[in-house]
């Protein structure tokens, strides 16, 4: 039997793939099989990351993460760990303390400094101001301008203490 992919070498690896409820058989030579498995491994990157998070002591010790459930969509943290996807926007609020270290690990940051939806920005100018200050704070910390950072931090606190500014809708 000849390899289905390269059509040159003899097939020594036999795979069964199920895509869209359709089963197909693949007969591959060693080289093509290695390439294919490398491609598959790449797709599993996130679950590895999540499995790694489970070992994170602060998260593992916290038993709450097994039972806490998003009231909006019903997803549990255990579901998230299994499928690697959140259920809805509200999940980000519900699982905030578990997601923060994960986001930090993936992106090296937990502070959005990009754009905002126009509708949301209209609702709260205060919120946009805080976001702007936070972005400046992060830049100040990165460039080790600690005096500037302290000043910005105080400004953020002051704004946040004003009622309603920090409400995550």
């Amino acid at each position, binding site marked *: 039997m000849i390899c289905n992919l390269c059509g040159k070498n003899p097939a020594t690896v036999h795979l069964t793939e199920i895509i*869209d409820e359709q089963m197909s058989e693949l007969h591959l030579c060693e080289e093509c099989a290695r390439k294919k498995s490398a491609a598959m491994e790449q797709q599993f990157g996130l679950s590895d990351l999540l499995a790694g998070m489970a070992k994170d002591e602060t998260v593992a010790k916290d038993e709450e993460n097994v039972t806490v459930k998003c009231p909006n969509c019903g997803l549990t943290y255990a579901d998230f760990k299994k499928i*690697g996807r959140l259920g809805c*926007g509200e999940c980000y609020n519900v699982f905030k303390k578990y997601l923060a270290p994960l986001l930090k690990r993936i*992106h090296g940051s937990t502070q959005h400094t990009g754009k905002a939806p126009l509708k949301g920005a209209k609702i709260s100018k205060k919120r946009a101001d805080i976001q702007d200050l936070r972005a400046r704070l992060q830049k100040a910390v990165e460039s080790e301008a600690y005096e500037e950072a302290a000043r910005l931090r105080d400004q953020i606190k002051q704004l946040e203490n004003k009622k309603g500014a920090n409400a995550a809708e």
Partner: protein
Amino acid sequence: MQLNDFLKHTSEWLKGTGPNSDIVISSRIRLARNLDKLPFPHWANNKQALQAMNTVIDGVSRVNYLKGSTVFKLAGMDAVDKQLLVERHLMSLEHAQKTENKALIVDSEEIVAIMVNEEDHLRMQVMQSGFNLHEAWSIINGIDDSISKELNYAYLPDWGYLTACPTNTGTGIRGSVMLHLPALVMTRQIDRVLAAISKLSFTTRGLYGEGTQATGNFFQISNQVSLGHSEEEIIENINGIIRQIIDQENQAREVMVSRNRAILEDRINRSLGILKSARIISSQETTELLSMVRLGADLGMLKDIDRRRLNELFITTQPAHLQKLENKKLSTEDRDLKRAELIRSRLNL
């Protein structure tokens, strides 16, 4: 616009124009967005998914820029038609599978495409020819602003746009640049270059995105990090990496031309010879040979080869395009015959 109309014109990103178009095929920016309240597509039940799809289609239809665009509902669509949209890079392979409550919105120029209910409620992309992420960003940024006035996005000030997968949270942006790097491949430097890229949090994919192999010396490079930097910073980071890769490819091309000119000319002309005379040809062989011919045209070794015509062949020789052009289903063997025929007719002018 009907599906068959696609065959009559060249996608914007295939025009072979724009900055550095000898090495950069196209630049793409995609943004991931979700509606607040409604569950993300993978977690939604049928009714919720349908509601999300209708809400998005309705909201997008009110955006001026997208007034002339076409909405394709994917459920029940013919497999070849879906594959045609994938081959034109208007949607992902994933979007073509399990099509219940999924849609694709495409503008008439094929510059903007919005996948509805893929991994997120909205996955919008803008593609440009050549090395031109800034232009792509400026177009998609405006469209995103307009849509955000019509739909309520899931968004938190601290974490930005909320996506089904936390790897996209924040800006939800992915900038991708499609590069043609034959000289780095032939001089066996490509592995070193790709390894360096992955250390800097960039990923490399094949022609058709996630999970596809790099063939015919084409590589798609994109950012991985989407939170903590602004969209402009992320784009500037990609640009910096791409500029370096372009330099490396140019150096490798110069070295090959100065040291192995005869061998290179031989390979390029043989490739053109096979394409001009073959009677049976697979799509993989076609891509590999077209890659060499393109290099020949870029280096000035082949005269009278139109880059746009070459770019078109990369797409029109794909299985679904061949079947649409012939207007019937073709077996693999028939496709290999028709493909050879099409290439001969386009190159022997």
